[in-house]
């Protein structure tokens, strides 16, 4: 339920956080009292034995188990409230700020329900001048209105997500949940195990609306990452899981800190070190979750994947509506990409790409077509950290040398592509975008077949896992390659031929220049891309070209190549060199005395672009 501005002004998320803390403390005291009673009863063993003593101990254990169930439920509610306060605070502040800015802008009216209207310009001057001024005010009001509605949607979503989490906790108490509907009399049907996206889609479509609501409320972890389920439902499920996990981890960190403070343990004691280590691990995971939360806080974003992969988090975020967009792009980044450091940046790049694509569509007369851009980090890209040489070498040999991460990631990415099509009745125009090691993953995913991808762009690619474009299963002229000046990684050909030298690819220009005229509008000056990491930078020529592919506008593409050093080497010797370095290790590996079949890692310096 979207709040009115009046309601929103009356909300106090800080007070909600305080109430959550108070409830946690009360609940902890409750659990401690019952646990202490049970320990006291168990302690009578040394001076009370017999049938009566056994009965007392059994009764006490039952009382403790019941109390622990209740305490866990209340703890879940407290965690939900804590997470809700953390989400609602910034969302409320943003919405009220937008409303205030609108009200201060040229006398715009902001209604209690959050709609922004332009005042009527009195007809006191020439008709044309009045009309122009009115049009200007109407446009200003429209822009503010869109922003405010989006911000209120974010508040509403955070409110709804928190309410769902509260109801889950309450349900564990065994009570009737207000507003949560009657409990289903039958167990909820679970999704198929290892189901294909089509099977998952059938599963979801066969559920009644009540059953879907029950799954979203009670088992969101079932469908948040399930390929074939619509993006809207995956987003709802993942936001619920995100809020719960943030609350649980926040509560856990508080409990551990209290335990550390009250334990009397010395700071150097083994027990103290263990607790600190657990706090550190929980804090690291919470930081990743916070990064996801900040990334999806912006209006118009969908959290399509939230996956606990052990020592790290994996996620995918869409900018735009994947369920309805005419054009959908999926971008897989490369080495050193991770949720904690990079998700927000990749989502921003996705948003800029979406905007550029829609801009071009508008000018070619297809402005009614919509775009959604996905930043996909649902695989463990190799993490090469120069400050951790052992880990770096291990990762490099295991991942880069063997391509293991790309192979594992490719399976998941192929399923994600397929799921986008399976979840919709129509067939969107789908473009796969892969950068660096992500391009290898993308190429391998396409080779799985049946993905539904229509176009693919590989940029900064060290190889796409094949030497034959035909293996990707795309039509002629639908495979594009971009290679920027000074991008040494793009010339490595570590995982197949250098893509810009492959037959059948279309090379996209990445150099500075003026874009073609479009829809009667003159072209624009765009900057060139240098090195390995500027392909999606805003207002570059490579971004322009990639957007033209994403929007299905091949006529707008500007072809071109930037010939690198390796491009000047005849193909056969280059292929031979690649085999000797990245093949069975018999070449340079043999020279260095390495055991056979150990491949050499990609030097990290090359990943940072030109020297």
């Amino acid at each position, binding site marked *: *339920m979207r*709040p009115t501005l009046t*309601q929103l002004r*009356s*909300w*106090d*998320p800080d*007070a*909600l956080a*305080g*109430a*959550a803390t*108070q*409830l946690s403390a*009360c*609940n902890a*005291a*409750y659990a401690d*009292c*019952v646990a*202490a*009673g049970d320990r*006291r*009863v168990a302690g*009578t063993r040394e*001076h*009370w*034995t*017999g*049938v*009566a*003593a056994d009965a*007392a101990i059994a*009764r*006490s254990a039952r*009382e403790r188990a*019941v*109390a622990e169930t*209740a305490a866990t*439920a*209340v703890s879940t*509610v407290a965690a939900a*409230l804590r997470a*809700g*306060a953390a989400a*609602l605070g910034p969302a409320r502040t943003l919405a009220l700020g937008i409303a205030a800015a609108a009200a201060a802008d040229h006398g715009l009216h902001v209604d209690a329900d959050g709609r922004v209207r332009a005042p009527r310009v009195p007809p006191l001057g020439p008709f044309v001048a009045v009309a122009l001024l009115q049009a200007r005010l109407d446009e200003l009001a429209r822009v503010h209105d869109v922003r405010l509605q989006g911000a209120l949607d974010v508040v509403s979503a955070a*409110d*709804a997500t*928190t*309410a*769902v989490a*509260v*109801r889950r906790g*309450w349900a564990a*108490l065994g*009570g009737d*949940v*207000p*507003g*949560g509907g009657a409990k289903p009399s039958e167990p909820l049907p679970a999704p198929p195990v290892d189901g294909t996206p089509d099977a998952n889609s059938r599963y979801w479509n066969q559920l009644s609306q009540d059953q879907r609501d029950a799954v979203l409320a009670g088992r969101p972890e079932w469908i948040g990452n399930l390929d074939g389920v619509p993006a809207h439902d995956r987003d709802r499920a993942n936001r619920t899981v995100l809020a719960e996990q943030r609350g649980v981890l926040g509560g856990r960190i508080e409990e551990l800190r209290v335990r550390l403070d009250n334990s009397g343990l010395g700071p150097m004691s083994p027990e103290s070190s263990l607790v600190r280590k657990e706090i550190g691990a929980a804090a690291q995971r919470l930081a990743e979750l916070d990064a996801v939360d900040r990334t999806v806080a912006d209006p118009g974003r969908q959290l399509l994947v939230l996956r606990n992969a052990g020592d790290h988090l994996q996620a995918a975020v869409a900018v735009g509506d994947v369920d309805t967009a005419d054009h959908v792009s999926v971008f897989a980044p490369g080495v050193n990409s991770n949720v904690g450091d990079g998700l927000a940046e990749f989502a921003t790049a996705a948003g800029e790409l979406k905007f550029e694509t829609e801009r071009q569509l508008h000018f070619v007369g297809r402005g009614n077509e919509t775009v959604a851009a996905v930043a996909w980090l649902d695989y463990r890209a190799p993490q090469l950290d120069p400050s951790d040489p052992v880990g770096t070498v291990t990762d490099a040999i295991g991942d880069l040398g063997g391509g293991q991460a790309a192979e594992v990631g490719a399976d998941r990415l192929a399923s994600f592509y397929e799921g986008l099509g399976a979840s919709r009745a129509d067939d969107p125009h789908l473009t796969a975008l892969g950068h660096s090691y992500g391009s290898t993953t993308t190429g391998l995913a396409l080779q799985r077949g049946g993905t539904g991808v229509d176009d693919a762009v590989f940029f900064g690619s060290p190889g796409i896992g094949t030497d034959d474009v035909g293996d990707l299963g795309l039509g002629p002229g639908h495979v594009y390659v971009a290679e920027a000046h000074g991008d040494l990684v793009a010339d490595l050909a570590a995982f197949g031929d250098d893509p810009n030298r492959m037959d059948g690819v279309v090379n996209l220009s990445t150099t500075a220049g003026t874009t073609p005229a479009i829809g009667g509008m003159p072209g624009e000056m765009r900057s060139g891309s240098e090195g390995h990491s500027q392909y999606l930078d805003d207002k570059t020529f490579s971004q322009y070209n990639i957007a033209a592919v994403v929007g299905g506008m091949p006529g707008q593409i500007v072809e071109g190549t930037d010939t690198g050093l390796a491009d000047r080497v005849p193909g056969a010797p280059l292929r031979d060199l690649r085999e000797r370095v990245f093949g069975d290790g018999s070449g340079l590996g043999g020279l260095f005395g390495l055991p056979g079949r150990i491949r050499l890692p990609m030097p990290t310096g090359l990943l940072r672009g030109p020297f």
Partner: protein
Amino acid sequence: MSEGMEVDVAALAALAGDLAAGAAAVGTLAPAESVTAALAALPGSDVAAALDGLSDGVAVAYRASVDGLGVMSRAAAIDAAAYAGTEHATATGFGVLEGGN
């Protein structure tokens, strides 16, 4: 052959007191105040709707523990008194027999 038993009556009586104190401690907790504060923080919200009635549910759960601890406390107190009474009666019985012919 009967099962062995051993009881420290004083310790059992002390257990009864401790369990009663535990029940009293749980009885002083007021989770409803926190829920009420949360309700007041977001009037008219979905969260407030979800919290409606929760304080009663939590109070019922806490009350069940108060009752359980209370029952165990009373049982321990009664048992301690019963054991003491039986011990005294048995000792008295032996005293009568000794004093008899």
